[in-house]
């Protein structure tokens, strides 16, 4: 038997009991009981299962858990801490600025796609602090929303970019 697998999620090492070929999503939801990543298609087509692996957005529904053994995974739950690390803050804010912006513009309907919207939007803001509208449209294009809230996701990303540029929180 090989050594038992463990993965690093939100800064913590977790033992994995699933077989190594199990997609990461089912480990995060069933073994660690995280609510951020969620099942949408199982085909990497929609973005509802997105997480960050070493800061890069991946689709956990098609990524075998063994493939992230040496990476640091961040889920929606760990996003404020990830942001604090990025920005060198002494302690994590309650919410990532994009989460606060989603509240401020009252963006959501059912909210099911917002795990992916938040993960991808946070990745975008980390890579490109002042994205143009065209940048946002292009970067977010792999994330679907059936409720039709795209215009407010756009607004929220722009608002969060201004918040981050202003140094708050």
């Amino acid at each position: 038997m090989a050594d038992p697998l463990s993965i690093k999620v939100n800064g913590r090492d977790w033992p994995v009991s699933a077989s190594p070929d199990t997609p990461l999503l089912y480990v995060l939801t069933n073994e660690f009981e995280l609510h951020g990543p969620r099942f949408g298609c199982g085909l990497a087509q929609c973005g509802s299962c997105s997480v960050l692996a070493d800061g890069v957005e991946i689709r956990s529904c098609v990524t075998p858990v063994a493939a992230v053994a040496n990476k640091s995974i961040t889920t929606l739950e760990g996003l404020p801490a990830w942001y604090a690390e990025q920005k060198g803050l002494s302690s994590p804010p309650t919410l990532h600025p994009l989460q606060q912006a989603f509240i401020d513009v009252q963006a959501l309907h059912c909210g099911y796609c917002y795990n992916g919207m938040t993960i991808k939007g946070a990745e975008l803001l980390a890579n490109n602090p002042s994205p143009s509208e065209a940048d946002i449209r292009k970067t977010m294009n792999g994330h679907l929303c059936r409720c039709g809230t795209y215009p407010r996701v756009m607004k929220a990303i722009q608002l969060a970019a201004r918040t981050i540029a202003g140094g708050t929180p």
Partner: protein
Amino acid sequence: MSAPAAQALGQAGSRLSRRKLLKAGGALIVGFSFAGQATAAPAAAAARGTLAGPPDPERIDTWLAIHADNTATLYFGKCELGQGNTTGLLQIAGEELDLAMSQMAAVRLDTNVTPDQQATSSSSSIERGGPQVRAAAAEARQALLLRASQKLGVQVGSLVVANGVVSIDGEPNRSVTYGELTGGKPFAIKFTGTAPRKPPSQYKLVGTRVSRVDIPDKVTAKYVHMQHVRVADMLHGRVVRPRGQRAYGSGAKVKSLDESSIAHIPGTRVVRRGDFVGVVAEREWDAIRAARELKIAWQDPPPLPDQSHLPIVLRDAQSTDTVVVDVGNVDAGFAGAAHVAFARYFSPYQAHAVFGPNCALADVKADSALVLSSTQDVYASRKMLATLLGMPAERVRVQYYEGSGTYGHSCYEDAPQAAAIMSQAVGRPVRVQFMRWDELGWDNYGPAQVAAVRAAIDGDGNIVAYTYDGWQHGWHSDETSTELALQKTPPERSAGSFSIIVNRMSTGSMYRIANRRVTSHAVPMAGLLKGSPLRSPLDMALSFASEQTIDELAFAVKMDPFEFRRKNMGDTRWLGVLEAVAKAATWVPAPAASRRSHAEVVTGRGIAVGTHHVSYGAAIAEIEVNTRSGTIVAKRLYGALDCGLAVNPALVENQIVGMLVQATSRMLKEEVTFDHNGVTSLDWASYPVLRFAEHPDCTPIVVQRIDEPSSGAGEEVMGAAGAAIANAFFDATGVRLRQYPLTPERVRAALAGRRTGD
């Protein structure tokens, strides 16, 4: 301590331990675990949960409880779907009771706890659910003021209330709280029927832009969607069906099944009841693999028609015809007309395309069952489950957990039925998560329609005659799980009341037309696909055909399409939304297609009106058409809605934005596809929806009418928005498209036809 509504709404612990599955009256119930949030609401709800509902709607305690800490728990029978109705209903209750939002909480729907307000459908939460909540809150206020009057020794008329504190007018120090008046005990009284309602002119909370109570938990990972719920000792289940539903009525018949084919996957088991086949496993990934690897053969289905023949199949079917409207004399009206417009239109089957496929969890015992799902009607769901499980409805408890936005009757009853069948078979709780292909392939689709519309004007541009004929089938009856398990041939439900889905409101009702006839030709559903209500049922088809016809009349008399509509409208509320949307878009009058260019990318704008049943919707679309590629880009949409009293204009604006985007998706991209064997649009590649990069900028406009009754706000701009895009295409190109979605292929074909035809 206050009880923020979001806590009670969303924060039940997702893993409900076996300890919390309490034995009560022989039925297992899930304890109301609110994840350490010590509010009064969970305990209050749990205390009610021992008896099967519905509770008596004429009793105050059915609707609300006032706790000793001066907070209130509200019991609604309308479920949160992401439309924000919980927030709106709390505003209505808080208004009548003079309670602040922070003093109230609502609990999730539960057949042992919450009242029966019927299905959360037809945008009825505020329109029909609101008055019930208002009545209950008014009764409670009256009872509380009566008690306060005795306690403070003054007439009720001398009392004022703020934030649940009753005081003597002008003597704020002589006061008593609601909590002190009830002591946390039930009211134990029936409605008097005489409780006065606040006049709208005195509203302080209703009509304001209160933030949604469900959003804060949804942006973190605290909210519990149905897909998040796990219970101890449960198995993971998946359904096994042919990929893509077959001709309606033929189900799917198992030819052969080799259970040993999944023996290599640990902890798995096949569940079969009739032609219902599922697999359960200890681990979710094993259930997914087992469903995929199970060796099963299905009998060949009776063939579906060739998809390209669908319009002919619908039109030539033996239909049951209902004249929905017949006023004046249409023959005489057409005979005297100066110009007649006539065309046939076709709208496709479209899917609910729920973003997170439906999920449910069932724990079925010998004589009772607990089922958690995203049903929009817990009591109707309970009845169906009871039949399937062979036990009285009172032995089945159904609890609602919000799923992913569903926009009509998706598979939200099918998933709990599948879970119940599997749990009954294996004697353990089973969680069923539909896969993407299950949801898209076995959805109850919004039906396709063929329409023939004829309308005429006199020499002065007045509409003088109008007929609308629609051919479509109606709604399904049994869910797929029931149909397969019981090997039933589902009954026809296309005729009779189902034919009213060609609704009179969407077919010319907004114009002064002396001679008008609307006919619904209800086609049998057997041999076609399974139908059900899809957001604003059939209205997109109706408005697409009707409002393009109106546009053609305007074009015939070289009138601006906005001015033409205004001239032919008499109703102030229709005029209100039409003028509001034109003002927002700074509409400058000009006849359609009068400013066409010969550039490769041309632009156009279109206007249309529409509704579902009661409210008033109008939309303007500004689009670009690439005449070489055929691609349409919706650049900007404006949507105006008059839903009477908008209890929370911010909620309505959010709904309008959602409608504009979803209508764009349905008009430009969405179409269920099938071959002779079954449905072939099974994922986001084969059933594309509007993507982020393609979304229009959206401007919502709420026409607030404080003194009118509230009416629906979740559907009534869909038809107008779709038709506005179609009219914008004509403005850009001078060509009419009479079949949607307006795909690049159809656009190229239509424009090629113009060139050769010119």
